[in-house]
């Protein structure tokens, strides 16, 4: 029945043959379904809209009881506060945190791609000993509870002085993104016929040249999509960030935003504005890779 609407629209004669009573039932059900879908969409999207609305409300209206949905004063003060420090007019701690996030997420994504793509290609093309077990092992490292991993990592970093250092975060994020990159990229490599490389090798190229000249260019869209997901994971990560960093000039955005509610009074307008600024790039990037979303969110395990 899942395609009944399709049929009703595309294949003209079908509804004509159906008895009229059933047709009306059809229409009624369809309306009901649209209504239900709309209601669900409103529920799912309301918090997001409310967040955007709060970010442009004046403080007075933010705390209004009952809540003001439409008649509020619009202000961009909260957004200014995100970037400009309230005191001297210099950079705010939040904007420093955003820059740190860009650095950590960017570098760890590049590293994970550099390590993961060649490995994915090798797993896809060569017969490696116990390949399946290796791949399963790789994916299972990604499933470790972060709170558990962070205990020994914390002790390790304390030994080598990586606590509160961007490199510490970059390393752990790379390690968390490599399994994802390998699994995701292996799917993309599998889609490129190995015959291309074989043919190139018959033409006299070495295996490595064949990979570089023929396979790699075909993989570029896949690499881009994979990198975007890795970027999103690192950008959104919170647990390692809060335990492995402490000072304002190293902290990434998630713990910095979470730190906004530490005091006695909470500036919810600022929280909302910084959340919007924080979430916007993710939404844009996610929209760009929407074709690969199923594979991306299942860590490359499910492909459709």
């Amino acid at each position, binding site marked *: 029945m899942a395609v009944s609407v399709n049929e009703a629209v595309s294949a003209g004669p079908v509804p004509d043959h159906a008895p009229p009573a059933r047709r009306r039932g059809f229409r009624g059900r369809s309306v009901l379904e649209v209504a*239900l879908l709309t209601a669900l969409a409103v529920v799912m999207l309301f918090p997001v809209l409310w967040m955007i609305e709060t970010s442009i409300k004046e403080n007075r209206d933010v705390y209004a009881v009952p809540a003001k949905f439409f008649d509020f004063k619009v202000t961009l003060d909260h957004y200014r506060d995100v970037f400009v420090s309230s005191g001297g007019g210099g950079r705010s701690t939040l904007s420093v945190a955003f820059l740190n996030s860009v650095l950590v997420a960017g570098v760890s994504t590049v590293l994970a791609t550099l390590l993961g793509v060649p490995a994915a290609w090798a797993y896809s093309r060569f017969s490696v000993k116990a390949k399946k077990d290796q791949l399963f092992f790789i994916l299972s490292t990604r499933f470790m509870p972060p709170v558990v991993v962070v205990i020994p990592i914390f002790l390790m970093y304390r030994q080598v002085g990586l606590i509160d250092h961007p490199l510490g975060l970059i390393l752990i994020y790379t390690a968390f993104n490599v399994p994802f990159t390998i699994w995701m990229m292996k799917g993309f490599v599998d889609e490129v016929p190995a015959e291309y490389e074989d043919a190139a090798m018959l033409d006299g190229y070495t295996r490595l040249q064949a990979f570089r000249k023929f396979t790699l260019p075909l993989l570029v869209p896949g690499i881009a999509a994979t990198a975007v997901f890795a970027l999103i994971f690192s950008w959104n990560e919170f647990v390692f960030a809060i335990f492995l960093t402490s000072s304002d000039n190293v902290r990434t955005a998630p713990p910095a935003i979470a730190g906004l509610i530490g005091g006695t009074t909470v500036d919810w307008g600022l929280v909302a504005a910084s959340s919007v600024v924080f979430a916007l790039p993710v939404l844009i990037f996610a929209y760009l890779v929407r074709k690969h979303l199923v594979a991306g969110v299942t860590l490359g395990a499910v492909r459709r």
Partner: protein
Amino acid sequence: MSAPVPLTTDRPGQVASTTPPARGRSRWLSDRRLAVAFIAPALLLLLAMSVFPLLWALYLSFTDYSATRGGAANWVWFGNYTAILTSAQVHLRALTTLIYVVGAVGLQTVLGFTIAYLISRRTHGRGLLTTLFLVPMMLSPVVVGLFWRFMLDAQFGVVNSMLGSLGLGQVEWLTKQRTALLSLIVVDTWQWTPFIMLIALAGLTAVPKYLYEAASIDRASEWFRFRTITLPLVWPLLLIAVLFRAIEAFRLFDLVYILTSGGPGVSTETLSFHVYKVAFLGFNTGTASAYGILMVLIVIVLTQLYLRYLNKLKED
């Protein structure tokens, strides 16, 4: 990491200009070397950053080491493990986690599948609808947690405000024992229903149309078609989504940390959160390690289950 980099840059440049060198018996060997050179750096990083820390945690779990006290660690054999497995506190957290995982994942599955089913029956605006529904999933748990905390605030939260205008009483969402866990489940459901929806939708759109057409010719009832065509074909994929979510929910820490900090009392303390408290507030590193290793064991079992179903799906 340093091994493959020169490989990728040097050799092609040298050979590319000349005619191909003679190939022969060494080809298989060089393939093998190439495989090792390409895979080893990634595996080494994983060994250093995932396996080694876990082994260290395993060692610590047999000691009474404390990160603050320092000093030598005493070997206590299985003392930490028996202490954890017999602790009533831990049992309580296990129960909370179970309620949370089952409640949240159950709700997400029902809602997510319903939405996917409804979307799959539409012809117009499918892409737009899917995109809109997916927004919550892409947000950071920090943003989600903070924002729901604001919305669920007892005094000026918008949820209570709406309840008020409907003539209903105010609810202390995050500050009452029973409602706090419910709030946690609701927020997690809000964020992750899109995940189930996305995967269910992938399964639903992959169902071949001719099956429905055949059933339609046979005048099979709608429920019959759903039960015998849709569900069996979507089920394997849905199961994978559910298992994935279960693992994630079991690991969850950030949302609890932001939304309730485990409170009020200990009513929303999950196992993850309790490990954090033992490790970073109690500084019983040895005990926390044992606790963590036990959690890892559960995750490994769940992951094995997940991978087994995944394998099955791929073979079909």
